[in-house]
């Protein structure tokens, strides 16, 4: 089976993060493979190990993308597609990202597309579901268990309160994968060495026949980025750990009683 895994390299701002215009100052960002996507890559690898096939990873973004794709290749993915956003000021939203991914992967005719439920930076949780709709694939969002045999999928959808729903559907299909579905492997040294010689294709949005400027306008326009309003918030306990523990002990004793 062919499995396509779209993945994102997500930003986390460090303590010095400053707002510049409507975005964060790039120098304060640390980039890592999105937490959810480590689980979708692992799920794809396990399925291809059990049933044979190919795992293709695809990502869209700036320079940061390459390391994320290499990480997935080092984990065991077979091939990577890197789509470069040429204008650094363009931050594509979930729907525009899905439009680009749809163009990039439609010719792959994948049996299964596995996305992460969401990304830790943008938290839209929209790309997978939009991508499925654009490719006219059946989908299940927030999956924490997959059984596959002969084109049949039995999956569990994780609902609020930990209730699980069992669902069956046929491939080709798209699932969005929830954390905890498996234990993502770490790339070992051999994997890391092998990664650099695996096939990698580089594309641009223009080469996919799409208009990057139009996509950058997207489904919403960012008017501002700001710090959240300071709520009343917590009373900060001062002093060293002993002082803090003494105050906490006092609060506990007064509130819980004995």
């Amino acid at each position: 089976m062919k499995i396509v895994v779209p993945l994102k390299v997500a930003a986390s701002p460090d303590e010095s993060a400053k707002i510049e215009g409507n975005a964060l100052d790039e120098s304060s960002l640390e980039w890592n493979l999105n937490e959810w996507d480590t689980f979708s890559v692992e799920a794809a690898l396990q399925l291809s190990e059990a049933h044979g096939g190919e795992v293709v990873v695809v990502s869209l973004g700036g320079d940061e993308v390459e390391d994320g794709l290499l990480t997935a290749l080092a984990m065991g993915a077979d091939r990577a597609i890197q789509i470069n956003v040429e204008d650094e000021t363009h931050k594509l939203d979930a729907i525009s990202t899905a439009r680009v991914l749809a163009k990039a992967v439609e010719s792959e005719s994948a049996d299964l597309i596995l996305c992460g439920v969401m990304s830790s930076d943008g938290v839209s949780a929209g790309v997978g579901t939009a991508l499925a709709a654009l490719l006219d694939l059946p989908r299940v969002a927030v999956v924490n268990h997959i059984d596959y045999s002969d084109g049949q999928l039995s999956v569990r959808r994780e609902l609020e309160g930990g209730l699980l729903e069992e669902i069956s559907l046929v491939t080709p299909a798209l699932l969005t994968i929830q954390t905890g579905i498996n234990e993502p492997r770490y790339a070992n040294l051999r994997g890391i060495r092998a990664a650099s010689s695996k096939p990698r294709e580089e594309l641009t949005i223009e080469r996919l026949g799409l208009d990057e400027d139009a996509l950058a306008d997207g489904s919403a326009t960012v008017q501002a980025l700001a710090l959240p309003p300071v709520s009343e918030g917590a009373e900060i306990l001062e002093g060293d750990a002993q002082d803090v523990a003494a105050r906490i002990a006092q609060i506990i004793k007064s509130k819980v009683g004995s």
Partner: protein
Amino acid sequence: MSGVLVIAEARQGALRDISFELITAAREISAAGSITVALIGSDPGLAAQLNATGVSEVITIASPVDHFEPHVSAAAVGRLVDELSPAVVLAGHTIDSLGFGAAVAAVKDAGFASDVTSLAWDGALTVQRGLYGDKFLQTLTFPGKETVVILVRPGTFGATSPGNGSANVRPGADVDASAVRSRHTGYREPEVGDVDITKADFLLAIGRGAGAEDESDLEPYYELAERIGATLVSSRPLVDAGLVPSARQVGQSGKTVAPKVYLALGVSGAVQHLIGMRKADTIIAVNTDPSAPIFGAAHYGSHADLSDVADALKDAFS
């Protein structure tokens, strides 16, 4: 383009709270036009509850299946968008809506924003949402979009009381069986654990910040919990890693708790965690990152290292 279309959410025969929170959100942008509530399903009892203050019309849409099915929902909402041309479609930022909200937006080329925490209407829609784990707040507008699909964060708006409305309740066109593309085969209840954390007065919550890599790393925290008379619970990553049983997970996909005291060590305060514990009487958070959103929910906080505080606390209770 005018009006607000609210997509109600039902599960296992009952409406979920978010449905009534969405009606409140719709009332806050009533300048956008009249409020229509859509129920996918045709239970007259549920439709009557959705006939709440401020609602002009409740449309029930007969579904070919008894359970939520994302493609049926997408088809139903897509058709209502064509029929009513609403300026705004409101659904919950819930597991169900994650299965169809972005699909409708993509197909209809609508505006889209999810996990939205505030909405305003001033001739056009403006919304806000958190980014980077709620450390920053983004303001969005939707120029040129005839319809905007918004997924609203649960628990953000108070619920409008069910019923008491004067809406016109009518059936909409059915969704055809050909829309169905997945089959519900059953529910599985969450595992019952050795403790019922919802009954405890005092919870000690451990987050990823505790740096636990295997179960033995958690022993000191179980010991601490015992010493101070608390029940140990955790955020999701420790459960995902198999270190803490899922019955002890607090949050959206775990348990909702309201103890007298909730002492959180190394928990950042993601919305999916906060939703499960923000009703605690007293919340104490220890986190080395002063900008962690948990401090917005906590009553007392400390920026000290959690292992130092844990050690000192053990001594304080000896």
